[in-house]
């Protein structure tokens, strides 16, 4: 608005120069989603890996500097044609099994893998054992199912309430 033509031309030149600079920069670091297939594989692999900085996030999710770097490394390795297993090996060689959200089955992790099933088996075993023993017991081994009014706390409370309501001179 109200700008003289030379000033506009100068601005235009400046804009072109700046844009050229931006393009040059873009050449050095191509957009990360340039290759969608690689990007998809990268995300799939890094979603199974724990970020060591924000430990409850995956490397795919985390914005921590290290996660960004490890995504870059993963991308580079995929471009070099490395397999998924090779990339996971690369990570565990540096950071240990800790990076794996699915821990491998080893002697040290056997309890982790089979512990829950083992507990379920033990619990089920105890239940079956107890029920079978009880089914073999004579009927007189059990207390009869009689309601005992005196032991009902609600009745007790009601009785107390009734008593205190009946007491004169209160309130």
């Amino acid at each position, binding site marked *: 608005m109200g700008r003289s033509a030379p000033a506009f031309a100068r601005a235009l030149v400046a804009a072109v120069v700046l844009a050229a600079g931006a393009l040059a920069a873009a050449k050095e670091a191509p957009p990360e989603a340039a290759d969608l297939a690689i990007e998809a594989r990268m995300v799939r692999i890094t979603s199974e890996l724990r970020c060591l900085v924000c430990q409850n996030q995956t490397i795919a999710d985390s914005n921590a500097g290290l996660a960004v770097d490890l995504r870059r*490394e993963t991308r580079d390795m995929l471009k070099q044609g490395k397999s998924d297993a090779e990339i996971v090996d690369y990570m565990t060689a*540096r*950071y*240990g099994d800790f990076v794996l959200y699915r821990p491998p089955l080893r002697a040290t992790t056997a309890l982790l893998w089979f512990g829950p099933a083992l507990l379920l088996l033990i619990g089920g075993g105890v239940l079956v054992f107890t029920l079978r023993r009880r089914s073999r017991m004579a009927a007189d081994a059990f207390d009869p199912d009689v309601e005992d009014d005196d032991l009902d706390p609600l009745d007790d409370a009601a009785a107390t309430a009734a008593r205190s309501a009946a007491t004169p001179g209160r309130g």
Partner: protein
Amino acid sequence: MTNANDKGPTRGRLWFLIPLAAFFALAVVLAVGLKRDPREVPSPLIDKPAPKFALARLDDATRVVRLDDLRGKAFILNVWASWCVACREEHPVLLDFAKKRAVPVYGLNYKDTRADAGAWLARFGNPYDASFFDEDGRVGIDFGVYGVPETFVVDGNGVIRMKHIGPLTPDVLANKIEPLLKKLDA
């Protein structure tokens, strides 16, 4: 419990203690688990050869240092950065240790800029025999670095013998690193 009709008074008497024992066992396991710092991830690199690297020195971009150049004597590699707050905390400890000149202390300047790192050393003092400039953090990744500062003890054969995560303390130096260095010297 005074029921005289109970048959076999000893049989199965202690069975009722099993859930209690199981509970205590679980409580102990969980208590130990609580005490452990989840941020300290055991490094798979302990007792493995240190990853090879070739990095320019922080103070001289034209001089490249390789891991092989450092072999022959045990050394300490401290990963640091000028943007790292905890590094400032451990810095006096490291300066004191470097003064003893027990072993060479090298720095891995992690994801920093030369200007910032140089200014930081000028301001707080330079404990390092040399710092290597790991601008993109790739060497850091090879060393399994995930939080700065980290400190590695590497023996004369280039094998990583110990890693300390987090700021060095006089206690860690006196009770862990120095005894290890003595053992490596012997």
